């Protein structure tokens, strides 16, 4: 069948599933006084529509920052303003200052869901389509299979269309950046990524690979000649983009500083809730937050994060190929997720995006990670009443991705890029057993699937024991942490063991 038909059917299916999930509940539905992220987004529309731009990030009588104050960069605020204008056209009640707080109605839900879909249709989905058509290898069927799998990744769909956020927009812009770099349009790529950074500060997780790749590439062209020119071009693009996004806040330094303070709330602590990163998991054993002062917590996490991203960044700087870049994106975002300060469980989506890009190259590990990443958000999803869509989309993704990408067949040691181990094994003393890594990974995959199903069922059906009310969320986050750590190590090994100049083959 023609590629065009298959691609359009994949898109239709992706949109259909998104819209299907959107029929379900959202975060904080019917839960006054604070509600949830849905209300936060609606509130931002209300604030940006009614207040002058200078008051958006300040605490005033009309703008109570303790009630979902704006804490994302300017582009999010502009997006909210745009949505607010549309909302005003449909029903002015939706954005009335102060009086619209906690507004909920089926029509409003439909409108909010539609804004998410519109953003996806304009930014995320086209980027995914272009990526799969231009930057993946293999037959048409394989490309379309990858496309369908990326579009059906449950984590993103559940958070955007269930819980309610606009991750499709920030991740989509990043993906446009990746596309630009992959196709050799570095300036356009950095423009897109700068926009992503200005939409959501969490995109900093991806910033270092972008920086290292571009710098390494320019250095390779010679920092005195053509390379310098490209570097200047990229730098100017980034600076101009940032300047345009921040223009309204640049007139007064106090404005810009206040925005920065809102975006990076250092005072909020090492971690909140149960998140599957190193600190929260360590907390099960050692209560770090009571041992260390808040400042030393910050410096500790900063130092560890820096340490964790250094190897992959240096390698990328030395060999700036697209394959290395994709791996570095995974390693950097995972390092930030695992070790940095103030991480939310939803931030795993930032690591999930680059892993999605590797679905075609390393199907088994990618599917494995993506399943666990969705699972790691289970407590959040259960709180939002999204059990049914969680179960359905996860199962569908598992069945379709393993089937379409023939993940379980394509996992020899070479295909898992673990040839390094073979070479290493030749040097090992003879009494050490030679491990069949491919088989181990496959077995682990099955075991983890069973454990995830078991833990999901237990979280839903069993009441926690009396003394341990948080037992299941802690189990979920620790289980996920171990997997994320394993994935982090695996991708680092793959990245660091790729020989110089070796492009993606196989």
């Amino acid at each position, binding site marked *: 069948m023609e590629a065009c*038909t298959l691609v359009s059917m994949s898109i239709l299916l992706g949109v259909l599933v998104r819209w*299907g999930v959107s029929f379900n509940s959202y975060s904080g539905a019917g839960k006054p006084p604070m509600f949830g992220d849905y209300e936060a987004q609606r509130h931002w529309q209300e604030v940006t529509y009614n207040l002058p731009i200078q008051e958006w990030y300040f605490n005033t009588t009309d703008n109570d920052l303790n009630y979902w104050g704006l804490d994302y960069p300017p582009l999010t605020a502009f997006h909210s303003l745009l949505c607010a204008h549309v909302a005003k056209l449909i029903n002015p009640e939706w954005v009335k200052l102060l009086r619209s707080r906690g507004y909920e109605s089926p029509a409003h839900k439909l409108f909010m869901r539609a804004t998410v879909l519109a953003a996806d249709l304009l930014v995320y989905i086209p980027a995914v389509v272009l990526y799969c058509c231009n930057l993946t290898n293999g037959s048409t069927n394989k490309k379309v299979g990858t496309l369908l799998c990326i579009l059906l990744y449950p984590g993103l769909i559940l958070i955007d269309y269930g819980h309610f956020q606009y991750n499709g927009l920030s991740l989509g812009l990043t993906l446009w950046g990746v596309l630009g770099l992959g196709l050799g349009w570095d300036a356009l790529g950095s423009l897109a990524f700068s926009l992503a950074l200005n939409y959501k500060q969490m995109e900093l997780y991806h910033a270092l690979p972008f920086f290292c790749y571009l710098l390494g590439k320019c250095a390779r062209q010679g920092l005195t000649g053509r390379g310098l020119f490209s570097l200047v071009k990229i730098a100017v693009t980034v600076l101009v983009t940032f300047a345009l996004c921040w223009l309204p806040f640049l007139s007064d330094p106090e404005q810009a500083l206040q925005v920065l303070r809102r975006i990076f709330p250092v005072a909020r602590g090492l971690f909140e809730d149960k998140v599957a990163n190193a600190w929260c998991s360590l907390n099960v054993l050692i209560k770090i937050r009571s041992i260390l002062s808040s400042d030393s917590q910050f410096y500790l996490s900063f130092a560890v994060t820096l340490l964790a991203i250094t190897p992959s960044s240096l390698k990328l700087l030395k060999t700036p190929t697209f394959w290395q870049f994709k791996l570095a994106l995974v390693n950097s975002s995972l390092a930030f997720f695992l070790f940095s300060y103030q991480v939310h469980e939803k931030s795993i989506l930032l690591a999930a995006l680059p892993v999605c890009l590797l679905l075609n190259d390393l199907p088994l590990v990618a599917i494995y990670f993506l399943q666990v990443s969705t699972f790691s958000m289970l407590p959040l999803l259960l709180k939002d009443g999204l059990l049914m869509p969680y179960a359905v989309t996860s199962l569908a993704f598992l069945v379709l991705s393993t089937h379409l990408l*023939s993940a379980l067949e394509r996992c020899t040691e070479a295909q898992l890029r673990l040839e390094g181990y073979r070479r290493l094994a030749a040097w090992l003393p003879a009494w050490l057993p030679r491990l069949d890594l491919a088989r181990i990974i496959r077995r682990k995959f099955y075991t983890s699937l069973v454990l995830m199903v078991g833990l999901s069922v237990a979280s839903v059906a069993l009441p926690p024991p009396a003394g341990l009310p948080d037992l299941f969320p802690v189990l979920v986050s620790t289980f996920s942490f171990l997997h994320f750590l394993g994935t982090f190590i695996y991708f680092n090994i793959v990245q660091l063991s790729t020989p110089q100049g070796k492009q993606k083959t196989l």
Partner: protein
Amino acid sequence: MAAPVESSGWFPALAIAVSLLKCLFINAYHSTDFEVHRNWLAITHSLPVSRWYYENTSEWTLDYPPLFAWFEYGLSQAAVHFDRGMLVVENLNYASPATILFQRLSVVFADLVFIYAVKECCTTVREEKSAKDLLRRPCFVLAVLLLWNFGLFIVDHIHFQYNGFLFGFLLLSVARHLQARHLEGALWFSIVLNLKHINLYVAPAYGIYLLRCFCFTQDNADGSLRWRSFSPVRLVSLGAVVLSVTAASFGPFVAMGQLPQVLSRLFPFKRGLCHAYWAPNFWALYNVLDKALSMLGVRLGLLDVAGLPKASMTGGLVQEFQHAVLPSVSPPAALLCTLLAMLPALWCVWRRPSGGRGFLRCLVQCALASFMFSWHVHEKAVLLAVLPLSILAVESRRDAGIFLMLATTGHYSLFPLLFTPAEFPIKVLLMLLFTIYSFSALRNLFSGEGSLLHPLEALYLLGLVGVEVLCEVVFPLSPWQSTLPFVPLLVTSVYCALGVSYSFVRLYVSLLTQEVTEKTKRL
């Protein structure tokens, strides 16, 4: 669906994927049919059998045959574990989350019958050359056309009904006939007939075909009937199968002397010729012609406005449609038209059965004839023709073309079932998904044999896009929305009626010319 290169396990993957997709729409809009079935669960669970067909607390009284009531009774045994509230007859319009979950899941699980039947149908598909590419294999195409059928999806899993389950039995019986396992086929058909009596539409095809091909064991050399080969044993065994199923279903009610009451529930002739939303059939065209003639008559001064029946000016909103110029249609007249429309197809099967495929063709023809001319037809009944026609479509180019016409117009005519804004994207996306797939898959199957559709046919189908934009985007913004609210439904129904009627005629032409070409071949 991008399929993998290797061809193992594609059927379960397709079935699981569509089942999961169905589960995604649990919280979507559901029609009053949801309450209908909840009420039947309550009736069968909490009342003795003797009261089932007398209970009338709810306006949605039990009006399916007894076997379906027993099916509801079986479901209610599981429903107990979800929410007992739904099993109380007095709890009208009860729709707790557990009730919704249970009823929706019951449809998804009942569809297992359908999935099995589709698998059986796929095994009967003739494959001339085994194509390397899975996407080009007729059995794969058939599986997608049936499992992912747009109409069945929205009618069952959004609107809410159990058609998948019922069509499962029907397709199973068709598959058994194609496999020449006639007694089994007859058994499944008598079961589905006792589950939902709408299958009477295709009963003549079964009757004639079984009599001709099962009860007579041999043909003459020229393919005509050899009267002496009649086998009384077969007739008796066939009768035993059919009668035992019917006896199990209706027997208890006959014994209790409730048969007249049951039948009055099953066949409510008090309803009008057309449903509130006209099914796109012959009568829709007839009504519109009547309206046009009366308006013309008034304009030319041949008719007196005061003498016209009032309701005719608000057609589409009332059940009773009184014709102003053309003769009004009575139930017997509609029945007569239906039988006349079926007759040629039945005659063809009797003269020259040409195997299971001839029977299937006749079945489609009967279903479509009933849809075209019966009394009070629902728009959903078009599926009775669309689904069996899928099997023929993957085997012959000509049928594929007719299938595309019928399926696309028939499915589009289901659009008014989902009228809520939130469900608008679903129907459009699903329809596009199914239509794009069916067009490209069938074109691929018959690549090199010319195009499937005449340019005019393609133009007509493209017109559906215009109708949709006009009815759901332009019209609501126009001032007529408040004065003539029925116009979109009217336009949809009439436009689709043209396509369905055309398919009906094309099918007949194809059947009769096939007859002629076969005859000339023999001569």
